[in-house]
């Protein structure tokens, strides 16, 4: 089956309906044996040092992946770097398909975008909805895994992050994903409840650091909410048999106000003490930190990550001091 790469969450139902394999290129990049090599490879190809590591990682993962020759690039709603990335990938002989989360007149324009994508893959909306029905069953399991984190205090922050973030492509095989998550849930259910002193929320793009969640838990705190990862699961649209409605309530690619509303709701629901706002170095979302700090009524630590790998000493110190401050 043909693999289709993409740069951030897209209506994955369309690719599965077309009988193809969706591949979230971010995951390929960050789970590579040496993600940093991917960054360096892209820099050697000419990507400026002061651009986001994700963009560089996606570039290298794509051009070095022998079986991906087509990439869906989210060129509106994510970042403008993705636009330039598409140009460079075209130059390398990769077929690119632009996809936009429109900034205004969302429903009408998103409808058009989704239809365009269906047309490209030669599938009908009905076929996509059938896939969505199946994916929604898995999404229900993800909602339960999320509850095992915040309600039952059994799943770790990392498990919560990993499985939700993986729902952008369901690890390229949703049936296997479904089995794996069922097994994991059984294992987690058998655990004893473990309450930590401080309950944290994590907002912003998924971290490029691998040990953030474990480090936080070592300090007797736990991340019980992963904002964007949860958004990737489309949990708020389970049972809605309409792709336009589903992907228009996906907060991540739209305005900050929509994200803030969602975050505020979960701060209250999950009884969250403070927020870690993660931004990627050189990302426009770092500017949004100004608004986020003003709008959320809880303490916020902004953590900026650049290179893939473990937390650096300085970031560790800041997180440690932040948790100490809350105790």
């Amino acid at each position, binding site marked *: 089956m043909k693999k289709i790469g993409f740069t951030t969450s897209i209506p994955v139902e369309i690719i599965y309906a077309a009988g193809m394999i969706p591949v979230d290129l971010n995951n390929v990049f960050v789970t590579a044996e040496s993600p940093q090599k991917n960054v360096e490879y892209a820099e050697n190809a000419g990507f400026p040092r002061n651009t986001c590591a994700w963009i560089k990682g996606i570039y290298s993962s794509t051009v070095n992946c022998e079986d991906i020759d087509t990439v869906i690039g989210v060129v509106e709603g994510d970042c403008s770097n993705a636009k330039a990335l598409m140009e460079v990938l075209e130059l390398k002989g990769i077929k690119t398909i632009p996809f936009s989360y429109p900034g205004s007149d969302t429903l009408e324009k998103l409808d058009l975008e989704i239809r365009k994508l269906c047309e490209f893959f030669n599938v009908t909306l009905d076929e996509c909805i059938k896939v969505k029905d199946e994916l929604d069953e898995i999404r229900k399991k993800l909602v339960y895994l999320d509850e095992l984190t915040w309600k039952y205090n059994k799943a770790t922050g990392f498990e919560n992050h990993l499985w939700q973030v993986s729902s952008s492509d369901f690890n390229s095989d949703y049936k296997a994903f479904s089995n794996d998550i069922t097994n994991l849930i059984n294992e987690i259910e058998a655990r004893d409840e473990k309450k930590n002193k401080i309950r944290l929320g994590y907002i912003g793009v998924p971290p490029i650091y691998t040990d953030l969640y474990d480090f936080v838990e070592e300090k007797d705190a736990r991340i019980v909410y992963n904002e964007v990862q949860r958004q990737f699961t489309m949990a708020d649209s389970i049972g809605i048999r309409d792709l336009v409605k589903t992907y228009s309530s996906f907060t991540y690619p739209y305005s900050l106000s929509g994200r803030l509303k969602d975050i505020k709701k979960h701060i209250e629901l999950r009884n969250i003490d403070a927020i870690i706002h993660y931004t990627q170095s050189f990302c426009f979302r770092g500017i949004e930190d100004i608004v986020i700090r003003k709008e959320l009524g809880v303490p916020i630590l902004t953590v900026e990550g650049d290179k893939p790998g473990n937390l650096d000493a300085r970031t560790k*110190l800041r997180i440690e001091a932040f948790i*100490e*401050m809350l105790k």
Partner: protein
Amino acid sequence: MVVLGFDIGSRAVKVVLFENENYKKSIVFDTFDFYKNYCTYIEGKIFVDFDKLALGKADRIVSTGYGRNNINIDGAEAITELKAHTFGAVWQTGLSDFTLLDVGGQDSKVMDIKNKKINDMILNDKCAASCGRYLENMAKVIGLSVGEVSNYSQNPVDLSSTCAVFAESELIGKISEGYTAEVLAASINYSLFKKIKPLIERFPAENIVVTGGVAANNALLDFIKKETDFKNVIVPKYPQLNGALGCCVYAGMNSTINLK
């Protein structure tokens, strides 16, 4: 009760000894010298050799600094630098509300202290152009010691690089343009100040307390006085020992000193 406070910094290891909650003595080691001569490596772990340190027996040991999690000190409790510096500065100045600037060998920390507790904090950008190491490197380029450089604050020229390494090249450029050593020294100090200014201005207060080895840089203090809104720029008696002092204060916290 004898308490030892260790601040294991990137350039210096500061050790302070408290007896019955009073400062008794202190020793400052070069970090490399400390690791080489006063530590032993057992199965990949680093242990402090107390016999060699010859400080006598302590009832309690508290450590801080970037090395606190790597060096094993028997029976020691490790606390973060931010906590240690807060305790140290409150103890040294007697103030409750102030902005604390600690400029160390490899980082700068700014803390907003309210009612003797950390209310908020910010660390320097990853670039080393706002710390002691930067001053050392830049001083070397113009052939002066860090101490000599610290006295000049008049007529600085702009060193605009955001990067410590590029700033060195920029400085070499200024030498070739014929600027005097005094002007170049002032420029180095001013470029350090410019990196620190946006950090301290995040937390406006009446008093700013400056600690860390770089508190000995008079030019930096001058710039803070002249170009920011802080009314009082306070350097406590032992600026470099502040973190180690804070460890000792922390150890005594449960008895009479109630800081938290």
